[in-house]
């Protein structure tokens, strides 16, 4: 915590302002449609941040993360529909289930390098979708095959995770995002983070330095899958209707990977910036071109990805960080220096 607060005052001040702004946002924006778009931006930033634990730090490219999001959505929903269990508990159960499935998938696949891991995860993600589309019922749980599940509408209440207005959804996902970003920060600045990065970049060298690379990758995978599934439950409660193609398909997996790659994988803010840039594109193409050209947003994502990879291979987080340094931190430091005379600037 000390490290986190050990930043330049200007950065702390701006972060505090930004956070404050985020928390009063629902008071300013009254349109539920706009609020929905903003909630989805935050949700995608959250989902991509959970992806980042594996895709950003463990040096592999997972392209089937929707499998775990789907597990979260289906678990909490069927438990509520069948037993009336609060989605909050279902969320945790879904998370644990996804973590177990993630571990089972990760054990054999995390040893694969590069494209092979990506292909294996695509196969698993797609396999999961086909499975859910072809099963109508598992024991007492109705999952309705390809037509999906509509959630029973109940009165607005926290325990039932259903609300009349958009604001509560916004606050819930915003807090989830902030917590996962905080977790990312602490992981990056810990032994686990260093070992993950080392194992991702040069596994042989990492093992020679005493790192059991496979175990650290598995830890990242389990954390990532658990958190992704929580996002799945949130998605279900927000939309109140989902079907295999909406939550288990390749579209969702790819969109998350696109957001991470364009934003900057392996960084804290990359997924947030990526979601801020790409979600509006996705929404606008869906609204204006959805009827005539469905899936156009993925083509646009592809074009943006090519451009970003060409000019900023580390993602847009890189130029943005440079801009912030140049226009906010440096001018401020200069002022401080001239104000405090010759005192050396020890910050950073």
């Amino acid at each position, binding site marked *: 915590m000390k490290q986190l607060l050990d930043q330049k005052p200007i950065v702390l001040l701006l972060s505090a302002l930004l956070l404050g702004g985020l928390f009063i946002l629902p008071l300013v924006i009254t349109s539920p449609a706009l609020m929905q778009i903003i909630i989805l931006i935050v949700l995608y930033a959250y989902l991509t941040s959970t992806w980042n634990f594996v895709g950003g730090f463990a040096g592999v490219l997972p392209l089937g993360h929707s499998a775990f999001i789907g597990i979260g959505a289906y678990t909490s929903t069927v438990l509520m529909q069948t037993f009336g269990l609060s989605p909050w508990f279902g969320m945790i159960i879904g998370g644990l289930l996804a973590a177990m499935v993630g571990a089972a998938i990760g054990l054999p696949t995390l040893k694969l390098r590069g494209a092979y891991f990506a292909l294996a995860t695509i196969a698993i993600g797609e396999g999961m979708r086909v499975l859910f589309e072809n099963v109508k019922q598992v024991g007492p749980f109705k999952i309705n095959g390809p037509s999906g599940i509509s959630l029973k509408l109940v009165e607005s209440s926290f325990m039932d995770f259903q609300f009349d207005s958009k604001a509560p959804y916004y606050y819930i996902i915003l807090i989830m995002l902030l917590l996962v970003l905080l977790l990312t920060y602490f992981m990056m600045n810990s032994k686990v983070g260093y070992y993950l990065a080392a194992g991702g970049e040069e596994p*042989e*060298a990492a093992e*020679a330095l*005493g790192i*059991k690379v496979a175990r650290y990758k598995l830890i990242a995978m389990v954390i990532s899958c658990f958190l992704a599934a929580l996002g799945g439950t949130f998605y279900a409660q927000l939309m109140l209707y989902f079907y295999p193609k909406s939550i288990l398909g390749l579209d969702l997996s790819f969109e998350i990977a696109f957001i991470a790659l364009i934003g900057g994988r392996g960084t804290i803010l990359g997924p947030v910036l990526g979601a801020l840039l790409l979600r509006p594109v996705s929404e606008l193409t869906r609204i204006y071109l959805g009827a005539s050209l469905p899936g156009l947003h993925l083509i646009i994502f592809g074009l943006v990805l090519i451009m970003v990879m060409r000019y900023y291979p580390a993602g847009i987080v890189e130029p943005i960080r440079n801009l912030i340094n140049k226009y906010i931190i440096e001018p401020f430091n200069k002022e401080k220096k001239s104000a405090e005379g010759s005192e050396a600037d020890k910050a950073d």
Partner: protein
Amino acid sequence: MSLLEVTKVTKKFSGLVAVNEFSMTVEAGQIVGVIGPNGAGKTTLFNCIAGAFPPTSGSIIFNGQEVAGKKPYEICQFGITRTFQVVKPFASKSVLYNTMVGAFAQTQHLHEAEHIAIEVLQFLGLDHKKDIVSKSLTLPERKRLELARALATKPKLLLLDEVMAGLRPVEVTEMLPIIRKINETGVTIVIVEHIMQAIMNLSEKIYVVNFGKKIAEGDPDTVVADEEVIKAYLGDEYVVTQH
């Protein structure tokens, strides 16, 4: 008891015998050299000791414990750390970050790891480069970073795989005192090297390998006078002209 006892280690790759019943002993505090022509099996021997692949047969006793067939990360936890002939820095990370990855073998805490890493970097004269991304280092610096990372794990035995390969003569002469300095802090060193002059200078004891077999062992002067060694390096006819 010797620190490292390698007994009759053999490594076969399908038909090929890369290392053939090789034995050697290393006492604590020594610098021991392993030399031999290209493809003699030096690096394979190293890989067997460091756990990169298990020996087909034979035993490797380190500090009284059998380590043959253990995984590389277990070998490191026993106290043997290796460097790589082709340097493998964590390229996108800074020099300090690279060294801290090694230092985490000793501690769980970030600031302690940083402390250890900075000490090691100072010891090797790399501390002024600590914030530089490792991919922009020069080759001699990368070789030194490789050493720094290995040293940060606080090994009892350091396995150096051609740390001087690819360096210019002047850079080699800079590297020699560094290796001696590391040895003086109590780290035992086994060094595989091509460059004869370098290894003659450093080692107390030398093993010569050719076609996977040990052809000579002893102090540097004995080894260079050995007929088999001259044959291996220069060819049969030179043995005759020597006399």
